[in-house]
């Protein structure tokens, strides 16, 4: 029952215009010239009318969506109604017509479902399927012999103890054999663990394939179709695959479901196919996980059709994302990892002589140094070879995809085995003091978790979901010993080019923990699946048995939900507590004298005018405007008025809405008035002499206006609010900027903005703050309004329309992106993890409404999140753990959608494996978040110390617990070799630097960014990329859509790398610097910059001229490519020696010494000194 469209963008259902697209009925613009504004001061509002209570909005929290209480959802936990029955309508789960206006897929009797299209072009290829050829039926009928012997690490005899219990559920007599209960089709001999099968599999595609439309290696799914052009699904339900010829309907022979499990493991193989990612059952407590062998036999005995009858009526649903039902992971954990909280809390005890100690040291030093990257099959120490004898071939079949630096994709059991299985490369010892050029030539990719290939292939994209440790330690004490933070970094609403969307009247979730079904669950048999987070055994609902992809019945494990780690559901009505509200945008503009001086109004109005049709929304979209100085001005834009009417409220102490109904108007109906207003606004206040700013009152008014519907409030502020509620005082002493021992005033001065933000959050209003000021504005206080309402903060220091054109350009580009980007309303996000792990700290902009529920009034594609985790219960007996982030939101088209990301990671029990799986970028990103918290709650110097200690502690731990051959020098595993560099970069980052004059607002803004930006962009802010671009060549260039993009190598951030004869590009995320050497190659100057000599390079050059030369094309292609990789537009600044930006360019040279900070080498020496202490 699903309709899947693979839209190129995620906003919409089936191939409609993307949510950001132009609105559907563009109104012809009639611009009336010279509309004069009746500046009707209207003091005469009858307060009676004026104070008419705003329409009673839903109560603050209690009536927010997802409250368990309110009545709208029929989803109450109350009746354990058998909702999955196809028959009568007891609950809303009926496949029947849904309660809301959603045209839901009619639930038809399962067997009569029309055939649907075939092969999902998006699905990651299941390389496991033996025959890349297109035909399904043969594959289904009998798995080709080679496919049979595959590696499933479950049956890996290597760890017999933990494995054993897992079999009891399948009643498998010999651990290897297929479970008796399964009427498996003829199988080849089950090779144990070693998989020659790989040789027959399609070559593993690059891991990125997960998100790209994959080559049709996906045989087992269905028949024949090459990924064709996308086309709308042909019927309401059915996960249609674009461009497919309906494959011949397969008769659902009872036996077919067995082979169809192919996608699960690599080819249907030895392990009982039903056990997918099952970590072994955790033991007796799971009473409900009773194995049903006889039942399974019955089912498999050829009665698939008979199993159609609803088996278990207990689909009692808890709440959706509500607090009040299952609260997730229980009590908060103590800080597990606390460099930031307890620095140097004791030296790590030298680990117990764990297995790692046994193995690693035995590697001869020579080996350690000679091992090359990606060398997964490097020779092992003889002792190790002996130990791994049965598995010796194992590493070989797993060809590491080129470029994958991380641990090879080996089965965790191998990883657990020890070092030789995890890549030696990640643990290669690097003496940081000796090896100078550690920076890889290309941006560092995320390490690949040590998972079996089939799991890894469907794992979540690291850009979306990433863990600091790609191998999760088994116990908290092990984690403490490793001294590295454990956490997740998310970018859940990232714009994705390929996103499977499923419409389904029943969204299959675990009944106990509410986890969405995902690729890492295991199917015990055809009718039951086991949750991979809480290990509860759940029933597969009837309609889930039908696989619309292959149009076959009885293949629940081939459904798109089980094939994609990132998927979006169109939610049925149970997932909303009130009907989806229209998209509402309210703009709150500062029009005091100061604001008018900066001239931002022109830019804002022009940008909005240009993009007004691109505002995401549908025909119901509403907009409104409020301006304020010492009074609040509302604009009546009601249809029928000849011109906008300005209403002024001067009673800022007790703010009220003059005409509550006509201030927010339908954009389509009143577009002309809105355009009139935008055209006249800049001139309206030209002569104003009002210098005061009553921001607090304006925010309150805006809140009142928005509270019935929720929506987005965009606040433009240019000075310190100094009137009425929320007035602030200047707290910064400019003279203390550089000299102060510690930075004060990083925390808010008042709780007014925080309280208001929480009110907003309760009413589903998000506040985005644009701060354009030349003076101190107390961003630390003002920022709270956005931080807790899940808004975003933009800051343009020294904005002026004439004096600072670079900022103007930046503001323009940001505004364009801001206005047109995708947006989700009334969102909540819940992050669940496997039992035993718990999340204890959250970073980002949101309000944590209950233990694991993030309330996000708005969610935008540029928001990143991070969480810290601890291990509350030992993860014994678990091979893998999973994390799931579910984001429920209302799209701008008024559709309720759920985007689910699931990440699966291996569990390891040795320190060396933990180190081998460390993701240095994620660690640095998380540490930055922790350090920001630390500087606010304690002090900046504490935070700096904590970061240094983080580096010291983890390297000490590595040295003491993993290394046994003590060499002189500062030793680090190869995967952490950049750790000290990133820490130093953080210490020199605007947020945390000391000794350099940094404005308080700049610093606070940088801190906001560190917490709020997704990791990829945060890393550029921390450690910019430097390229030499005057000698770009096509050698090694990428070729993307017929454009050749040169790939210069990354340079270290040191002046030593600069040369007067060259030109360099520094990419610092939101800004790019093009540094031109004094004696730069004249060829470059003329061919790329279009100037004859160095002296004639203009000062204010913000874009490269479009010259028709090869050099120019290459340079622009490269810069354009860099820009395309991020959602915002980084402005380009060309820098000569005397340029005003030179200082900021040079400050990014973090490997060099400055007056107040250590050079990289000195920093390393400092670390070494501390470590050897």
């Amino acid at each position: 029952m699903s309709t899947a469209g693979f839209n190129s963008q995620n906003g919409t259902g089936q191939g409609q215009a993307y949510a950001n697209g132009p609105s559907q009925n563009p109104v012809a613009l009639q611009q009336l010239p010279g509309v004069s504004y009746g500046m009707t001061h209207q003091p005469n509002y009858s307060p009676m009318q004026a104070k008419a209570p705003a329409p009673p909005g839903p109560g603050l929290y209690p009536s927010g969506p997802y409250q368990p209480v309110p009545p709208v959802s029929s989803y109450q936990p109350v009746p354990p109604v058998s909702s999955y029955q196809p028959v009568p309508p007891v609950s809303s789960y009926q496949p029947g017509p849904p309660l809301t206006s959603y045209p839901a897929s009619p639930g038809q009797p399962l067997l009569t479902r029309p055939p649907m299209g075939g092969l999902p072009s998006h699905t990651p290829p299941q390389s496991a399927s033996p025959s890349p050829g297109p035909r399904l039926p043969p594959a289904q009928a009998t798995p080709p012999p080679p496919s049979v012997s595959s590696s499933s690490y479950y049956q890996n005899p290597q760890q017999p103890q933990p494995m054993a219990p897992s079999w009891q559920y399948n009643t498998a007599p010999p651990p290897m054999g297929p479970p008796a209960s399964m009427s498996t089709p003829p199988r080849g001999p089950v090779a144990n663990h070693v998989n020659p099968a790989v040789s027959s599999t399609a070559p593993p595609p690059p891991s990125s394939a997960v998100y790209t439309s994959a080559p049709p290696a996906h045989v087992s799914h269905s028949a024949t179709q090459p990924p064709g052009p996308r086309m709308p699904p042909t019927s309401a339900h059915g996960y249609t695959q674009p461009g497919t010829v309906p494959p011949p309907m397969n008769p659902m022979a009872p036996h077919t479901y067995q082979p169809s499990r192919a996608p699960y493991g690599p080819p249907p193989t030895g392990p009982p196919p039903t056990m997918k990612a099952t970590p072994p059952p955790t033991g007796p407590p799971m009473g409900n996980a009773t194995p049903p062998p006889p039942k399974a036999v019955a089912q498999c005995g050829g009665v698939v059709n008979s199993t159609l009858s609803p088996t278990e009526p207990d689909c009692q649903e808890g709440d959706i994302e509500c607090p009040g039902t299952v609260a997730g992971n229980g009590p908060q954990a103590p800080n597990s990892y606390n460099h930031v909280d307890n620095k140097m809390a004791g030296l790590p005890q030298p680990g117990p002589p764990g297995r790692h100690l046994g193995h690693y040291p035995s590697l001869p030093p020579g080996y350690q140094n000679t091992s090359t990257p990606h060398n997964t099959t490097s020779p092992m120490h003889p002792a190790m070879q002996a130990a791994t004898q049965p598995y010796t071939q194992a590493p070989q079949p797993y060809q590491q995809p080129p470029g994958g630096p991380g641990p090879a994709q080996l089965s965790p059991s191998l990883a657990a085995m020890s070092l030789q299985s995890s890549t030696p490369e990640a643990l290669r010892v690097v003496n940081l003091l000796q090896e100078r050029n550690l920076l890889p030539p290309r941006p560092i990719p995320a390490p690949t978790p040590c998972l079996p290939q089939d799991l890894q292939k469907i794992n979540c994209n690291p850009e979306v979901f990433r863990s600091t440790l790609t191998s999760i330690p088994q116990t908290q004490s092990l984690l403490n010993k490793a001294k590295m933070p454990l956490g997740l970094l998310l970018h859940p609403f990232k714009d994705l080019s390929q996103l499977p969307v499923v419409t389904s009247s029943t969204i299959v979730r675990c009944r106990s923990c509410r986890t969405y079904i995902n690729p890492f669950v295991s199917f015990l048999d055809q009718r039951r699946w086991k949750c991979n987070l809480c290990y509860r055994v759940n029933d597969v609902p009837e309609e889930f048995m039908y696989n619309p992809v292959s149009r076959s019945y009885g293949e629940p494990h081939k459904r798109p939900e089980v094939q994609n780690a990132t998927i979006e559901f169109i939610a049925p009505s149970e997932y909303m507590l009130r009907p989806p509200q229209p998209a509402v945008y309210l703009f709150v503009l500062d029009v005091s004298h100061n604001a008018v001086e900066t001239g931002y109004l022109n830019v804002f109005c022009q940008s909005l005018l240009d993009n007004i049709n691109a505002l995401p929304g549908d025909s119901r979209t509403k907009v409104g405007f409020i301006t304020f100085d010492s009074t609040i001005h509302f604009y009546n834009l009601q249809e029928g008025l000849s011109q906008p009417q300005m209403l002024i409220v001067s009673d800022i102490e007790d703010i009220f809405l003059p005409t509550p109904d006509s201030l927010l108007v339908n954009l389509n109906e009143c577009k002309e008035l809105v355009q009139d207003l935008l055209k006249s606004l800049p001139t309206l206040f030209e002569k104003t002499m009002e210098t005061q700013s009553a921001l607090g009152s304006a925010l309150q008014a805006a809140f009142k206006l928005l509270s019935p519907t929720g929506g987005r409030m965009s606040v433009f502020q240019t000075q310190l609010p100094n009137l009425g509620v929320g007035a602030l005082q200047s707290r910064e002493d400019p003279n203390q900027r550089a000299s102060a021992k510690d930075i004060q005033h990083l925390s808010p001065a008042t709780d007014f903005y925080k309280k208001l933000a929480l009110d907003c959050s309760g009413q589903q209003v998000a506040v985005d703050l644009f701060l354009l000021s030349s003076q101190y504005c107390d961003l630390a206080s003002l920022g709270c309004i956005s931080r807790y309402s899940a808004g975003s903060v933009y800051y343009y220091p020294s904005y002026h329309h004439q004096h600072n054109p670079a900022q103007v350009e930046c503001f323009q580009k940001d505004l364009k992106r801001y206005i047109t980007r995708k947006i989700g309303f009334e969102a909540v996000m819940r992050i669940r993890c496997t039992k035993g792990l718990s999340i204890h700290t959250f970073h980002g902009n949101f309000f944590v409404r209950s233990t694991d529920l993030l309330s996000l009034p708005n969610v935008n594609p540029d928001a990143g999140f991070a969480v810290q985790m601890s291990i509350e219960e030992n993860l014994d007996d678990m091979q893998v753990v999973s994390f799931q982030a579910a984001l429920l939101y209302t799209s701008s088209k008024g559709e309720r959608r759920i985007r689910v990301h699931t990440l699966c990671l291996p569990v390891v029990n040795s320190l060396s494996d933990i180190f081998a799986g460390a993701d240095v970028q994620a660690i640095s990103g998380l540490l930055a978040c922790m350090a920001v918290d630390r500087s606010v709650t304690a002090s900046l110097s504490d935070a700096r110390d904590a970061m240094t200690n983080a580096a010291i502690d983890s390297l000490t731990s590595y040295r003491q617990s993993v290394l046994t051959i003590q060499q002189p020098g500062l030793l680090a595993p190869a995967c952490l070799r950049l750790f000290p560099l990133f820490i130093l970069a953080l210490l020199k980052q605007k947020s945390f630097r000391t000794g350099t004059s940094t404005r308080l607002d700049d610093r606070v803004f940088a801190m906001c960014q560190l917490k709020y930006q997704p990791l990829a962009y945060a890393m550029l802010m921390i450690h910019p990329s430097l390229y030499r671009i005057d000698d770009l060549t096509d050698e090694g260039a990428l070729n993307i859509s017929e454009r050749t993009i040169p790939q210069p190598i990354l340079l270290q951030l040191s002046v030593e790398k600069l040369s007067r004869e060259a030109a360099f590009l520094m990419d610092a995320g939101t800004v790019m610097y093009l540094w031109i050497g004094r004696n730069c190659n004249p060829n470059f100057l003329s061919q790329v910059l279009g100037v004859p000599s160095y002296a004639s390079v203009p000062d204010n050059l913000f874009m490269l001229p479009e010259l028709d030369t090869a050099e120019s094309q290459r340079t622009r292609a490269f810069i354009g490519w860099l820009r395309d990789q991020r959602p915002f537009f980084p402005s380009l600044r060309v820098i000569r020696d005397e340029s005003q930006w030179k200082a900021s360019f040079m400050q990014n040279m973090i490997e060099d010494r400055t007056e107040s900070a250590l050079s990289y080498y000195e920093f390393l020496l400092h670390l070494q000194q501390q470590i050897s202490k």
Partner: protein
Amino acid sequence: MEAAVFILSLVDCCALIFLSVYFIITLSDLECDYINARACCSKLNKWVIPEMVGQCLSTMLMLVSMHWFIFLLNLPVAVWNIYRYAKVPMGNMGVFDPTEIHNRGQLKSHMKEAMIKLGYHLLCFFIYLYSMILALIND
């Protein structure tokens, strides 16, 4: 006289015990998701000052009536209550801040604190009871 002091302390102590129990219940409600952070914190913040006053009251009573041992027993808790209240950052909404309570294990530490206080108040309760009976007998 002495008996009156202890009776008063006893009443005060009962109130504090109830308060501690209330804190524990509310915090565990939050832990179990029965209420949201905002509601929980505004409920609890209301009672921070009464708790502080109650604790200081019994401390002062003991000081005035010159029961040094019980005074010293009470003093640290009173000081802790005042310190905790005083060190709340300006930007926070009180000792219990809804935006912070789910972070860095604060909920747990608040819970632990409430538990310890409950135990402490129970101890005090029996001391007061004993002293009161003693005082009544002596009278």
